[in-house]
């Protein structure tokens, strides 16, 4: 019987998405190569004699493979990822929008990709021009007076912004002691305040999930450096009392920091600089379409009012008397550098390409579509899931699992089940002011058809939670791997591959090993 030939695990898998792909080290064989260096056009040197005791003798488990094997390895791995290019990523506060490909093309133009950060300013006018054009656009979009592009990501922007605030207060004679942070805030906010040497004072939200003005008034005093506020908040609500919030702070000499994570709800419709914000960061990898790339790189420019300008990180981009662009280092009141060179420049290129592709009309339409999409989902799913805050929302909507939790089905379970329907999960259990939060941000990049598919999937999951809770609790069922044992991963961490014991000598003291 010919069927017998196929009994057992086939050596060669037939479907890539389900096949096992070993670690690159397990696929390696001595002597294989994927490189060929250019012919050496200068005399070779004897490394051992040049370097003496500093010479390395071995590169351990570093792999050896051919080019086709490398292409296949990483291509196969890629097929195990979900991605915006495959479908909707309804992660709240993450703004997973389309990443335009022209951005990638322009970032790779030789004159841009090969520019050295220390090449003379006269030979860097193109790069500086990109920074200037982007800076001007971001200043206009935020309604602020000035900007630094140096911070490498959102949290790094927060760090920079709070340093500006600290330097401002110090210039007035007292850095002050605490930063107020609403309980609905992202975890980076309190972590940032701590890194900047501030105490964190938690500000409780009111019954609508917004800033409680009375509470704020009580808490703001002469020791308050700033309030770090996300607007719209993490439940998607615009703080309608924003001007009063700013006034309460300013009356006591404190400043208003805005976390710009949710700026996709505001671009072209309102400007933080107009409603009282003193300093804010932007996430180019959220609002301005630079790719998330599996976790980074990001870019977190910080825009601020004139009062904070003297403290900006060095160098500062300036237009010189002769019209040339330059970098100014002599800034005695500066907080110093927060990163080497000028920031994640490659992200500036992409963000500017996105702004050019949109123009003012495109950016406004983008914001309107993002808000339209979120409200469409809200209207369609209100009732299927509990909506803990009824206040009108902008770009995202936060439901809770209260109805489904009665059957033992939690937000995390439904998020996992959504994977079986071909979506990424929404943001699970955040913000923390909502028990069992299900935070959904569709962005503008989703068509009505894709939104309807998500809505149908979530309604179906709600039905499953009633009729067959276990199906949801044990999801996902259609993925290459099941839920992973995260407890053991944390308890007995395996953070690198090691060659099987038989193939290597007994464990050696690392310090004594011959390299």
């Amino acid at each position, binding site marked *: 019987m010919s069927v017998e030939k196929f009994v057992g695990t086939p050596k060669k898998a037939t479907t890539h998405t389900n096949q096992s792909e070993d670690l690159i080290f397990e696929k390696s064989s001595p002597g294989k190569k994927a*490189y060929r260096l250019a012919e050496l056009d200068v005399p070779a040197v004897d490394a051992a004699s040049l370097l003496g005791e*500093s010479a*390395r003798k071995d*590169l351990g488990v570093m792999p050896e493979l051919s080019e086709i094997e490398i*292409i296949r390895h*990483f291509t196969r791995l890629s*097929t*195990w*990822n*979900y*991605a915006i*290019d495959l479908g909707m990523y309804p992660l709240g506060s993450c703004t997973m929008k389309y990443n335009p490909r022209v951005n990638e093309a322009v970032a790779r*133009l030789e004159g*841009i990709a090969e520019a*050295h950060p*220390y*090449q*003379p300013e006269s030979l*860097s*006018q*193109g790069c500086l021009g990109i920074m200037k054009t982007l800076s001007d*656009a971001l200043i206009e979009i935020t309604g602020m007076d000035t900007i630094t592009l140096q911070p*490498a*990501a*959102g*949290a790094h922007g927060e760090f920079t912004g709070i340093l500006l605030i600290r330097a401002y207060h110090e210039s007035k004679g007292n850095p002050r002691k605490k930063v107020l942070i609403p309980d609905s805030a992202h975890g980076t906010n309190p*972590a940032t305040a*701590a*890194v900047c040497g501030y105490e*964190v004072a938690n500000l409780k939200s009111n019954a609508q999930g917004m800033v409680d003005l009375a509470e704020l008034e009580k808490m703001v005093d002469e020791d308050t450096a700033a309030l770090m506020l996300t607007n719209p908040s993490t439940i998607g609500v615009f703080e309608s009392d*924003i001007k009063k919030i700013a006034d309460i702070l300013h009356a006591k000499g404190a400043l208003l920091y805005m976390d710009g994570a949710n700026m996709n709800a505001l671009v072209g419709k*309102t400007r933080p600089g*107009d409603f009282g914000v003193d300093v804010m960061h932007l996430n180019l990898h959220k609002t301005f379409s630079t790719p998330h*790339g*599996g976790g980074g*790189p*990001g870019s977190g420019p910080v825009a601020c009012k004139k009062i904070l300008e003297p403290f900006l990180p060095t160098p500062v981009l300036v237009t010189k008397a002769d019209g040339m662009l330059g970098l100014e280092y002599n800034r005695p009141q500066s907080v*110093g*550098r927060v*990163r*080497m*060179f000028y920031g994640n*420049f490659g992200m500036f290129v992409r963000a500017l390409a996105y702004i*050019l*592709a949109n123009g*003012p009309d495109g950016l406004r339409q*983008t914001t309107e579509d993002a808000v*339209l999409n979120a409200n*469409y989902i809200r209207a*369609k799913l209100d009732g299927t899931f509990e909506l803990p805050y009824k206040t*009108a929302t*902008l770009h995202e909507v936060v439901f809770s699992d209260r109805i489904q939790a009665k059957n033992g089905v939690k937000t995390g379970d439904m998020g996992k089940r959504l994977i079986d329907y071909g979506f*990424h999960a929404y943001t699970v259990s955040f913000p923390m002011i909502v028990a069992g939060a299900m935070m959904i941000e569709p962005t503008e*990049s989703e068509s009505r058809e894709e939104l309807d598919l998500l809505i149908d999937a979530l309604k179906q999951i709600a039905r499953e939670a009633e009729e067959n809770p276990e199906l949801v609790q044990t999801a996902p069922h259609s*993925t290459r*791997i099941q839920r992973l044992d995260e407890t053991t991963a*944390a308890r007995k*961490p395996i*953070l690198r591959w090691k060659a099987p014991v038989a193939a290597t000598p007994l464990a050696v003291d690392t310090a004594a*090993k011959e390299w």
Partner: protein
Amino acid sequence: MRYLPKSPVDREEMLAEIGVTSIDDLFSTIPAEFQLKRDLAIPRQHGESEILDRFREFADNNAVGYSSFLGAGVYRHYRPVIIDSLVQRGEFLTSYTPYQPEISQGTLQAMFEFQTMICELTGMEIANASMYDGSTGAAEAIMMAVRVTGRDGAVIARTVHPEYREVIATYAQHQEIPTTEVGYTENGRVDLAALDATVTKDTACVLIQSPNFFGTIEDVAAIAEIAHAKGALLIVSIAEAVSLGIVRPPAEADIVSLEAQSYGVAVGYGGPYCGVIACKEKFLRQMPGRLIGETKDKDGKRGFVLTLSTREQHIRREKATSNICTNQALVALMTTIFLTVYGKQGMKELAEQNLAKAAYLKGVLSAAAGAKVLFDGAPRFHELVLQLPKTAEETNTALLQHKIIGGLPLAKWYPELGPNASLWCATELTTRKQMDAVATALADKKA
């Protein structure tokens, strides 16, 4: 707008489903006085071909057609074509942080491979899944050492990249970490006697860079001995990661902070690059940033997850080991592919070519009239400090006439070396022809 997948009818029908008459109704929570009633004053909408033209124009306003001898923490190495072929796959490019491991195994496994390679290259036991860059990584490493030791002082070598030291100063001031600088001797290495005198029982860590900013390879073992004798940790920062193909890894260090830009990442006017922290396993709980760990699913199938996140800001908030969230994942993937392409043999050969090119460059430069190569008493990788008869600025201005970007003037950061000192670099991409052209240009009277 071509990125928006909606027809006018879609929009109308959706508004009706929501139960509002106009889109502005959805923005009514924004007080009227703050609603923007005009167009943003930004460039008009561009067609794709116009965007390309605009950026080509920017690109042409940079240093096109010049040969460059700049290094100083950013190195131009060959980038194998398959790096961009692979990282531009949408599944890598457009995926989010792998919080849902069932549909993120591609990124997770690749990052586990990254962590493994970084451990192997640096001689450390564990590595994280990346930091923003080498400068912030070094600052985070110092903060980590302060937490580990319960001490608060940092001793920093003057031969660490000046911009790294500036970033460290920014971070350290509000952590109340006093920093002290230790100088170098005439061979360009850390002054061991001064170091020994500076490290005290209150010192949390010693930070050095190797190869250091002058290109000189430090005596890591001797420095480790001095630090450890007083109970301080040794942090080694590595700005030129390609050196690890031929230079012995700093295995005596407690923490290594690596800038992996050299592994296939474009110089790109300063970023994005790829920092990473590696260390001894016993410091695991104080490590900042994301970590990928191996585990199994319920069928016993191997898989990878983000792990030990109780160190991180989204769980621990103000008590976290760092405020870092977004890292440099896609750039870390670039470096992983680069390291796989060169692998065990290629990393060595590549590093040897860099050594050979630098040796040739040294020969060419030291032959110029009145030239002196500094710090000749210790081994170096592919950079060298050169003193010429004229100021570095004057020399470079003259070289620009020959379409050559000379070494980086050092007076701004190292006034003690005088106005004529500059830092030169050759990599495997620097050709003999380019180096010979420097010799010719320097012989030219104007230089």
